[in-house]
């Protein structure tokens, strides 16, 4: 039976999570690229959001959340053909329409996160093709495994708001695509700095706010669980921000804005899987870990692996999400306010590890195939002239800033 209060909070959470993609992620990513590519990033976010919404309605939701197969949902909810106005989503007290919509915002932002890997050089057709296939072939199954009653769920794996389903899948896939599409031609030395750090901060701030819906909304109810999830989310973001700033301040003597807000996102991605079991203290500690580890990860991908994951999707999201998933059992024990695990710490840790590895591996392989296919069908990269000219005009026929008379 529908609980109007739970529904009120879930409607709000849905709006907050949509805000994360449009415009928050667009601004966060758009500010990091060069001025000549700002619009292309925004078109990519908009188009991926729109397209994945329709695909979610048509197939995704059904494949993830209909039926209880181990590996994949069934087709009963294709095109939401069986969704009556007042159906209640089993296991919750909210209308299924709200559950579909809330989950849709997750299905939208996950492929959108991957955009950060291939900006400034990809063909627009490849963006659409890869995102579409990826949603159905990678995201939908994994969502089913972890949240839809699939094999990982049955194993007792815990992923409150998407450390595995969202961040590990997106992060690993981002690395694969970034590696396959090859670096931007100026990489690593000729790359220009972020064209609008202020825009990066605005995007990060809206992501922070939106993440309250992402994590606290994942309680799918209004009450103590949502409350503690929000508190944990906020504290992790805050301590990760401080950690990243501290590192830069010590290393370079200049704590930067881009650095600080990158820390914020790292803290948010890391607490995501653990938001349901972390108490305040656990969240603060996890945030510190997030700031430090992701800082190193970002550096390692660029300098050691030499992959041009342009906006650090793996380093920030992938690594953060995986770390949070693995540390979750310990975090739940730190201080007051922690939640219950499905298993004792040892077995839980094992389940978490299996999940991370299995999903990472699956994402990598599937994404490799999808990207190869896209390369065949439409080609991955624009030509050098267009890359130099900038995608805004080359691909979309527009100019980002017309401030001159």
């Amino acid at each position, binding site marked *: 039976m529908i609980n109007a209060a739970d529904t009120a909070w879930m409607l709000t959470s849905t709006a907050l999570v949509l805000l994360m993609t449009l415009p928050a992620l667009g601004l966060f990513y758009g500010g990091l690229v060069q001025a000549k590519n700002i619009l292309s990033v925004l078109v990519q976010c908009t188009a991926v959001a729109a397209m994945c919404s329709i695909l979610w309605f048509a197939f995704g939701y059904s494949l993830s959340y209909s039926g209880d197969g181990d590996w994949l949902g069934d087709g009963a909810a294709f095109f939401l053909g069986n969704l009556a106005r007042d159906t209640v989503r089993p296991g919750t007290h909210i209308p299924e329409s709200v559950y579909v919509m809330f989950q849709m915002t997750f299905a939208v932002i996950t492929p959108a996160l991957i955009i950060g890997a291939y900006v400034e050089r990809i063909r627009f057709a490849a963006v659409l093709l890869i995102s579409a296939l990826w949603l159905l072939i990678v995201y939908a199954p994994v969502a089913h495994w972890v949240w839809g009653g699939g094999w990982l769920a049955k194993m007792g794996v815990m992923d409150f708001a998407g450390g595995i389903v969202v961040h590990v899948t997106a992060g690993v896939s981002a690395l694969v695509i970034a590696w396959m599409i090859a670096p931007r031609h100026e990489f690593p030395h000729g790359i220009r700095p972020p064209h609008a750090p202020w825009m990066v901060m605005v995007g990060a701030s809206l992501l922070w706010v939106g993440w309250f819906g992402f994590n606290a909304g994942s309680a799918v109810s209004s009450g103590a669980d949502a409350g503690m999830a929000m508190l944990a989310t906020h504290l992790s973001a805050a301590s990760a921000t401080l950690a990243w700033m501290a590192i830069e301040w010590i290393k*370079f003597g200049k704590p930067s804005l881009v650095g600080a807000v990158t820390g914020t996102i790292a803290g948010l991605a890391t607490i995501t899987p653990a938001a349901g079991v972390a108490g305040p203290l656990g969240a603060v500690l996890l945030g510190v870990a997030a700031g430090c580890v992701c800082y190193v990860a970002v550096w390692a991908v660029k300098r050691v692996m030499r992959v041009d994951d342009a906006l650090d999707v793996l380093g920030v999201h992938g690594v953060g999400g995986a770390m949070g998933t693995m540390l979750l059992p310990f975090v739940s024990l730190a201080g007051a306010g922690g939640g219950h695990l499905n298993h004792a710490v040892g077995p839980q840790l094992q389940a978490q590890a299996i999940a991370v590895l299995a999903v990472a591996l699956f994402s990598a392989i599937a994404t490799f195939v999808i990207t190869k296919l896209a390369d065949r069908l439409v080609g991955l990269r624009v030509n050098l002239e267009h890359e130099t000219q900038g995608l805004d005009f080359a691909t979309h026929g527009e100019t980002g800033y017309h401030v001159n008379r």
Partner: protein
Amino acid sequence: MKLVTAIIQPHRLDSVRQALTDIGINGLTITEVRGYGRQKGHTEIYRGAEYTISFTPKLKIEVALADDRVDDAISAITQAARTGKVGDGKIFVFELLAAQRVRTGETGDDAL
């Protein structure tokens, strides 16, 4: 007539303009430029990666004036623009064959 062009540090603009008005030069045109020279630009660090910004923001000041005002102008600008640091800039002087005021059509020195 001559055209005196000065590349200066942006923050010296106000004092340079003042110095010129003090010696009765009341017209000039400025342009945002970026310069490269002994002063080698700077680096910015984002997410641990270094970005070299080879060009430094400068302002270009252009003053057209009668031949006999050139020396005063140069010394006025030099004093007002100097900070003693590398990057203070340059002054260049060009021959100006003709000048005309759009509004009135006046030519030569009257146009300035």
